[in-house]
């Protein structure tokens, strides 16, 4: 029970930090509570930093009226598509290059160059190519996800134990079966290990893409609000995005736990509770 207690205490402290943060925010931006310390006008702090009660009211408004769901849905769709396409591409090309030393030697400098290029800068080009709909955002997300998956697959194939490989060959595996039963599971385990990273980057790609030009999505909401200096809505959008990212991360953790049962975790013992 003591560990449960400690956990409860920890949660309490974490909540206190959050409350203090919002209180400070409120106290420092409210036009009436404190005299203006830094700004000439008492309203200026609220103009620049927003007011937490208005931000929360905005979020409440979005969810109670249901108007946010459409935008969240679009952002989620873009994230999922970017993740799926980027992962499949990374997996295929990673497997190919890892298993073909010649191809890998030829493409090596280009892969390195493409990876070090600041790919967010491609967003305007994608807008021109794919229009302002979801596909330009998906494309940006794909370029971000691809390299994470690619490098992990490459590593995963290279790290296959030579003994396991020799053993499987002795057990009669053909080249195709080697790929299917050894390289692929090993590579996917590395991909799953980077799941948090790649889902996170797919999300970044979607939001940044929306922010740079779109007609729907949470990034679009933020862009619109910024255009009319509605700081409260901007912060509301940021908070919603943060919460959404946390939720995505939690889902990924659950999936990861399911898929990687075969992985040893430190100090795992069987207990009869």
């Amino acid at each position: 029970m003591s560990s449960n207690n400690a956990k409860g205490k920890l949660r309490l402290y974490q909540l206190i930090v959050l409350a203090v943060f919002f209180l400070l925010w409120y106290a420092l931006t409210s036009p009436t509570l404190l005299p203006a310390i830094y700004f000439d006008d008492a309203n200026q702090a609220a103009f620049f930093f927003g007011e937490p009660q208005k931000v929360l009211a905005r979020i409440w408004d979005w969810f109670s009226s249901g108007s946010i769901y459409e935008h969240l849905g679009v952002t989620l769709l873009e994230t999922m598509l970017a993740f799926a396409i980027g992962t499949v591409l990374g997996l295929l090309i990673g497997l190919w290059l890892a298993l073909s030393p010649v191809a890998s030697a030829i493409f090596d400098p280009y892969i390195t160059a493409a990876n070090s290029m600041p790919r967010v800068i491609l967003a305007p080009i994608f807008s021109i190519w794919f229009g302002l709909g979801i596909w330009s955002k998906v494309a940006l997300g794909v370029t971000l996800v691809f390299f994470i998956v690619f490098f992990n697959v490459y590593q995963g194939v290279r790290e296959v134990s030579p003994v396991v490989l020799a053993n499987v060959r002795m057990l009669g595996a053909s080249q195709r079966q080697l790929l299917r039963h050894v390289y692929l599971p090993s590579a996917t385990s590395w991909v799953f290990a980077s799941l948090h990273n790649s889902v996170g980057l797919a999300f970044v790609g979607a939001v940044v893409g929306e922010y740079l030009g779109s007609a729907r999505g949470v990034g679009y909401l933020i862009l619109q609000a910024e255009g009319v200096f509605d700081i409260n809505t901007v912060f509301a959008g940021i908070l919603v995005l943060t919460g959404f990212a946390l939720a995505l991360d939690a889902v990924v953790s659950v999936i990861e736990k399911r898929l990687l049962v075969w992985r040893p975790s430190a100090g795992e013992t069987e207990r009869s509770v």
Partner: protein
Amino acid sequence: MIPALALENISCTFISRDDRSQRYTAVKDTTLVAEEGEFVCVVGPTGCGKSTLLNVAAGLLLPSRGSVRVFGEPLAGINNRAGYLFQAEALMPWRSALDNIIVGLEFRGVERAEAAERGNDWLKRVGLTGFGGRYPHQLSGGMRKRVSLAQTFILNPQILLMDEPFSALDVQTRQLMENELLDLWSAERKSVVFITHDLEEAIALSDRVVVLSAGPETHPIGEYKIDLERPRDVSEIRLTPHFIELHAQIWHTMKEEVLKGYVQQQR
């Protein structure tokens, strides 16, 4: 009679990838034969190229010179009439014990239900009933070896190649496993080439012991028939006078080579 496995005048020279002039001859002019149903142990000092020989027999490594014959036919590619038990962990960590055992059947296109049935049968034979769903990391070292044993035996290979398979186990587990191996072997009488650096293990298990010289340019320097009666219990047979006699005799040949190997490692 045609031997099950014949390595004829095998030489293996490794060339350094960075410097072509750097060469290392691990094995030189070695001939090794295993008759049908015979249990041959190969002993030699550490680092003398024993594993190299076994990899050649398995078809995993192409010799620089010499030929391999399996039941009279020259070997090309992987030796698919042989099973190989490795010294290191060789199970697929992402497959459960049962799935590891039946993977060879899966490669041969055996139906899942039948494969699972045979797999469960083997789980029972190696004393792991109820552990089929565990992943390798959830099993002890001895259990993992048993899974490896079942994984190889389920395919019923005519030749068994074993590369110090029990060297990582503690003494008690090791003797249990050796007895289990002898039981399995006597039931199915396969040809076995068993590599070890432990002379006692070699004598306790085998019909014939081949002693290799220290590397480089390893070659056989002695061959001894082990005429101890079967069935044997590996922990008891070590105490019989004849065992001790054989041990003294073979050790006399081996001692010098072990010292040579030791000196080379010091360098």
